[in-house]
């Protein structure tokens, strides 16, 4: 067991190092940081929300957009580079199970996503704290002596976003495990991501479907594709005082558990599809 963990960690660490050395990751990080920081200068546009909410929405949007791109492209790229460059052969020709190889690849990208999410959430937190402090100095009476932004909520939400990106990474790994080209994996994974984002529509319509066969099909599909809308609790977690509904203490844990289950399911499917793949 110790040997298995050691091998997975070694492959994961190498995958992570491979990823952070790629220009793509660095460019994405710079772009995301620039976008979050620039939200401070867009405040003259009034989208109907308070300035802090606008900065938070902008920052969380940047994390979701660039995090999704990173999760899909990095997973597909790091997987295919191993196959195309035949480095996978040198690893799999050693006493390494195929599932250990896949678990290592997943772990490396998951670690990369952790660094990305933590960095972005950290910068967003600094931006919010800085702006909130200056607004409190100027309009202290409107804040009633307490901060509007929950920074613990931001940290918790960042963990949920990380798990959501982890699910996307696991989906991409599954697609890559049977597809023949990098492009196919990227395109299909993005389509699946869109389905997961819009899956709540199917869930809503499920209630009104009368045909039991169709209802069963929609129900099955809604189980197959994770519901990414479940993770959209940023407003409630960051601005609990303004929220009309409050999250129970167990809800973030439940959402996190939901993400972890789907990660295991899709990595498991990837292992199943990859076990007899000819490389």
């Amino acid at each position, binding site marked *: 067991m110790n040997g298995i963990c050691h091998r997975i960690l070694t492959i994961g660490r190498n995958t992570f190092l491979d990823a952070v050395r790629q220009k793509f990751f660095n460019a994405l990080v710079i772009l995301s940081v620039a976008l979050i920081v620039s939200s401070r200068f867009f405040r003259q546009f009034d989208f109907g929300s308070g300035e802090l909410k606008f900065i938070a929405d902008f920052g969380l949007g940047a994390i979701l957009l660039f995090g999704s791109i990173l999760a899909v492209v990095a997973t597909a790229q790091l997987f295919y580079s191993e196959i195309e460059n035949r*480095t996978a052969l040198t690893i799999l020709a050693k006493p390494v199970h195929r599932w250990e190889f896949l678990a290592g690849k997943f772990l490396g990208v998951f670690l990369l996503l952790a660094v990305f999410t933590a960095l972005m959430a950290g910068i967003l937190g600094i931006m919010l704290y800085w702006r909130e402090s200056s607004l409190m100095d100027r309009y202290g009476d409107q804040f009633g002596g307490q901060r509007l932004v929950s920074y613990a909520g931001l940290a918790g939400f960042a963990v949920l976003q990380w798990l959501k990106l982890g699910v996307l990474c696991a989906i991409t790994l599954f697609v890559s495990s049977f597809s023949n080209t990098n492009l196919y994996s990227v395109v299909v994974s993005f389509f699946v991501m869109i389905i997961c984002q819009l899956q709540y529509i199917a869930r809503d319509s499920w209630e009104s479907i009368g045909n039991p066969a169709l209802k069963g099909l929609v129900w099955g599909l809604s189980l197959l594709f994770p519901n990414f809308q479940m993770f959209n609790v940023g407003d409630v977690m960051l601005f609990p005082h303004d929220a009309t509904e409050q999250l129970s203490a167990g809800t973030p844990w439940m959402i996190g558990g939901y993400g972890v289950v789907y990660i295991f399911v899709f990595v498991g499917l990837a292992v199943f599809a990859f076990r007899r793949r000819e490389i």
Partner: protein
Amino acid sequence: MEAPAIRIHSLVKDFRIGLRGWKLRAVDDVSLDIHDNEVYGLLGPNGCGKSTTMKVVLGLLEPTVGGCEIYGVPSSQVKSRLNVGFLPEAPYFYRYLTGRELLKFYAKVCSVEPGKIKPRVTEVLEMVGLTEAADRRVGTYSKGMLQRIGIAQAIVHDPKLIILDEPTAGVDPIGSAAIADLIRALKAQGKTILLCSHLLAQVEGVCDRVAIMDRGKVVLEGKVDDLLSKHDQQSLLVDTFPEAARADVEAALAKHGAKLTGVTTPRISLDDLFLKHTGKGGPKQS
């Protein structure tokens, strides 16, 4: 009786191609036994099934029919690869790692004990002649150096069996000679080596036995000396051979019912000539 290093029995490997699932038979009923501490050459033209056979041996491909065992363990089991090192054809490694880091990575993957990794990596780097380039990034290595670091990653966990796919392809004669010396050194250490190549002259000097494959089948197999020697003929090497001496020799041979069929000047190979004039070695003893 101890199990052979590799036993391939009645191996058939088909690939499905196209949407209709046409079968392409890459390996057709191959059976081989490769013994311990033997250098075995799997030779043949491109596309004859050598690499496919190797991949089945390594458990990277599943056989359609038949099977393969490494020291008695079926190659489908991961534990069969505990004692195997592999160099793939035209290897490409993580360019951002140094040679030393690369070997440490593979040593960890092979579960070499943490305390033994550093000395083993140093030892292997010295063995393949890359000590000076150990802390350079692999991305800066020449083709020959890549092959040597490839062999180093294959032997870093001290396996009993080493499988080399086209170890000298694309390497200059100096690099090829160094790799050949390395193979001989590994054999001297008691290792078994299976090497696969279409560069026949380069493997001739290192193999004990060879099998020649064509269109997925083994068409010839045996000891190199047995296959290459003309047992019904002998040759004499003399410093000078005047016409008068030739007549005397022909007469003497005729007395014993033998016949002189030709007199030629011995040649060294172009590789040996190259090595001699580039100061990298002298002609090999044949």
